[in-house]
């Protein structure tokens, strides 16, 4: 294979048009990139440091292994708000996901014709939450709201696209 490649190397070479110098040539073939070589052969000089103070600067730019905790502020520039601390006293609770977002998701199927809205991570009285949410969503709808409650796994599935409505309601309640 290698011999074949070397035989047709003249064909693979990028062609440069010599007459028009203004046109830049990228040489973006894999052949134009330099081969990997051992670090010891490098001409660049470096020194190994074991200073913990210097290492702290390296650690600062390493990505965190787990999602960091939220920093509470007086006002936020985006629409995102942290969960209110009073919500733990209610009969039901929706836990934020690990990225501190509301666990409301939409699933589409049948080429986008069926839209299901999932409210996940529900703890506590999930049936009361379903009743309250249905009451809220019904105001804007002519058709009756259909929902499936899975108490065991802790999610409610609404038939239809109510992601933003549910997120608005959750935000109002402080979840």
């Amino acid at each position: 294979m290698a011999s074949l490649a070397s035989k047709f190397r003249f064909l693979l070479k990028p062609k440069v048009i010599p007459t028009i110098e203004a046109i830049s040539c990228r040489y973006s073939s894999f052949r134009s990139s330099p081969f990997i070589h051992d670090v010891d052969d490098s001409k660049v000089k470096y020194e190994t440091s074991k200073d913990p103070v210097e290492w702290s600067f390296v650690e600062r730019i390493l990505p965190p292994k787990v999602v960091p905790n939220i920093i509470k502020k007086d006002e936020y520039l985006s629409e995102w708000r942290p969960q209110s601390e009073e919500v733990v006293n209610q009969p039901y609770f929706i836990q934020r996901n690990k990225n501190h977002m509301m666990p409301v998701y939409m699933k589409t199927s049948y080429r986008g014709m069926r839209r299901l809205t999932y409210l996940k991570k529900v703890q506590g009285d999930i049936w009361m939450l379903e009743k309250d949410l249905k009451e809220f969503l019904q105001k804007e709808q002519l058709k009756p709201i259909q929902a499936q409650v899975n108490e065991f796994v802790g999610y409610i599935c609404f038939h239809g696209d109510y992601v933003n409505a549910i997120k608005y309601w959750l935000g109002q309640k402080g979840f």
Partner: protein
Amino acid sequence: MLCSNLLKSNLKQLSNCLKSYSNVAAVEGQKHYLKPRQVWIENLDTIDEKKLGLIDLHPDVFAANPRIDIIHQNVRWQSLYRYVSFAHTKVRSEVRGGGRKPWPQKGMGKSRHSSIRSPMWRGGGIIHGPRSPTSHFYMLPFYTRVLGLTSTLSVKLAQDDLHIVKNLDIPTEESSFMQELVKSRNWGPSVLFVDEVDIMPRNITVATDEIKHMNLMPAYSLNVHSMLKYDTLVMTEAAVNRVISKLLEALNRNDGNAAMEKFKLDQV
């Protein structure tokens, strides 16, 4: 040499554990609807139970939903991924004989046949039979494995089958001591002891060596199948803390999508 290497790896584990604690400390600060599960820390050095203190267990790990479907998926995966089926049948070319045509094509008044080992024949080859070796390896998704562990730990705790001890130090090497202790505390016949590292105290190692239904296990090899296999799970305080920190790290890891990628056979 080996011992020192093991010790070194244990120290490394310990330092990693402390490091992961600091990582997960951020997660601990969150508000939770579920209260932390409070469990007594018991002793193991006397037959009579003494309560040495209380420990708060994280609700995400020890108060998870008892997802028996996920637990079943884990148990099934654990038994299947290492199972290789050696059931084997022979096809017509592998069955002995059958090289010549049993009778001429025409003129006999019988149906035409070319080999006595054709799958039509009694004693002939088997079509679509099991072929050895058949691997049943598959990989369960990462978060299904994590959820399996949290569900099983929660189930064990809710059923009062999880006990936390200060450490695994016992005064004697007698196996009768362990048997009496387990009997008096109603821990059921089979008990799994889990310590943080894989070098256990000598006494408990000798005492449980002859008892086939009492086993020791390091925290890093805790799994769903073993937790269900034994009546009671006895964990040391250090092992519990390590398991909590590792599971919280898994539940809150930053590169969750990378963990959910398709399993590659050559991955490290």
